[in-house]
């Protein structure tokens, strides 16, 4: 069995388990899992850029927010049906990703981190400044009419936990498989080549600017997809989704799970989300635990959990 085949089977297995969990878990955990799946999509988008292409962005909240606002505002002001609003969100974040990518990719390494951070910070401030439209930090709550939609005659109610879980699951599954395809074969090889040695890759006839731009756009668009989904499913859009913390989040999730591994983002998101959720009721010191965990990870498992497993035992776990 080829390595890729093994990985695909693992992914399908994971998807099957995730789907089954909704019949097993308590209703709160189903909700938590819904959120984990959406945030995993965010992290998977991040992983394409950071894990596979080797570009560390500190501004992905901007793309998440682009999807969130594009879809949310379309729904709020023009009453666009949710399905279309979702697509508008994806398109909006794609546009933002391309524009920011064209600019930011002129820089490298630390300068790239700062440029993405700065653009993202400007975007965050813009959501505050144009509060007449965006609702600023207080945000906007989608009206009741925008909480359900009609999909080929089937009415899907966004306030229903089961519906939400299954929509999140579907989007997660699609993005997981898309990521699987995008990180393998010729396209994936380009990304990994750019990560491994950009100078050499250019001298092998690749336009690395374009390769990076494609990765950047794909990454930003997936992040935006997560944003659109989050906003529409939970019916609230607000500027705190565009802040620095929300840029750090996918970075942490990806790092803990394992950058450059297909399932790392899911694992990282699930672990970190549940950890914070469990600890926040017990103590305000949960951030210390998170901090210690990060340091421990870098000391003893610098490639993340799945990255370490891959390097030690299972090279196919890419």
């Amino acid at each position: 069995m080829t390595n890729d085949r093994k990985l695909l089977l693992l992914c399908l297995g994971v998807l099957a388990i995730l789907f089954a969990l909704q019949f097993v878990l308590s209703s709160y955990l189903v909700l938590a899992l819904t959120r984990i799946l959406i945030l995993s999509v965010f992290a998977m988008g991040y992983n394409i850029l950071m894990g596979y292409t080797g570009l560390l962005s500190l501004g992905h909240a901007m793309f998440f927010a682009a999807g969130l606002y594009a879809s949310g505002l379309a729904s709020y002001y023009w009453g666009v049906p949710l399905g279309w609003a979702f697509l508008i969100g994806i398109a909006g974040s794609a546009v933002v990703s391309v524009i920011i990518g064209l600019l930011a990719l002129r820089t490298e390494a630390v300068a790239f981190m700062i440029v993405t951070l700065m653009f993202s910070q400007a975007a965050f401030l813009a959501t505050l400044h144009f509060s007449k439209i965006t609702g600023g930090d207080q945000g906007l709550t989608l009206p009741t009419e925008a909480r359900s939609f009609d999909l080929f005659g089937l009415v899907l109610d966004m306030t229903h936990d089961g519906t939400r879980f299954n929509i999140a699951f579907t989007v997660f599954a699609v993005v997981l498989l898309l990521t699987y395809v995008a990180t393998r074969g010729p396209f994936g090889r380009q990304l990994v080549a750019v990560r491994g040695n950009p100078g050499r890759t250019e001298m092998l006839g690749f336009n690395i600017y374009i390769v990076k731009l494609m990765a950047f756009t794909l990454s930003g668009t997936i992040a935006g997809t997560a944003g659109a989904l989050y906003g529409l499913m939970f019916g609230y859009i607000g500027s705190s989704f565009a802040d620095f913390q929300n840029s750090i989040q996918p970075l942490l999730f990806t790092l803990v799970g394992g950058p450059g591994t297909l399932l790392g983002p899911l694992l990282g998101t699930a672990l970190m989300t549940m950890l914070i959720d469990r600890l926040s009721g017990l103590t305000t010191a949960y951030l210390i635990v998170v901090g210690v965990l990060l340091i421990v990870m870098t000391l003893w498992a610098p490639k993340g959990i799945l990255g370490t497993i891959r390097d030690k035992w299972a090279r196919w776990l890419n």
Partner: protein
Amino acid sequence: MDIAPYLLLATLEGLVQASVLTLTALGLSVVFGTMRVVNVAHGEFFMLGAVGAWVCAMLMPGPPWLGFVTALIVAPAIVGLLAAAADWAILKRIDYDPEATIISTIGLMYIIQQVVLMTFGPNAQAVDAPFYYTIRFPWFGYSSYKLFIVVAAIVLVFALWRLMKGSRVGLLMRATQYDKDTAQNFGIPVDRVYSGVFAVGAMMAAIAGVLVVPNQQAHYLMGHDPLLLSFVVVIVGGLGSIPGTIAAAVLIGLSDGLLSVFFTPTLAKIASTLLVALVLVFKPEGLFGKATR
């Protein structure tokens, strides 16, 4: 207010901001220049300096200046030790890998913040200025202590410059910066140089924190803005270039002040943030950095 005094005020404010920024950013710059790592917990060292000043002010009897002077010595010393310990316990063990350093210092940032929150509480804590005198211009009043910050920053920067250029320590730092492996082969204790540099960088931030606190209050979340701005300054100034860092700090401090004359505050922030991004995009080596290719 007329435009002339307005510009005067904006310039004064810009200079004060530039001074604090210079000290903080120089710390980051020295660390990056020598060790090629980005310390995300740098803002927390700044915050620890400020909190240290508050603790000293609380514990020291006598006039405010006594506590202030004590803080100027004690807070950087403690922060420096802490930084050296972090270097020994963490950074050395991950071999200063750039990405791993970012992550572990994010971890360090969370830990420091929460420990301060749990020990000193969430309130913003005021500290008396060592002296208190308001200079009255015809149009507005201005704190003399703020001008003292500018002077103190100039003195400290000069001292650092002498240290870097004139002493053996500076030579070791530059040698290590130039080529780590060669330096090692020449018998330079690279490990100790790194620990020392990391500590010095943190101490710069801590001193800035002590200086700023009579002005700004100590608060456990106060490290965020200095961190972001220092990042910006270090990058715009050209990585590891000390004159560049100073020039960028002054430029950004002043432009931040002046932009707010012409735009509404939030719009001014957006404009200055975008400006920084675009400078980097079109001049990635920084305004004062040398082109590498």
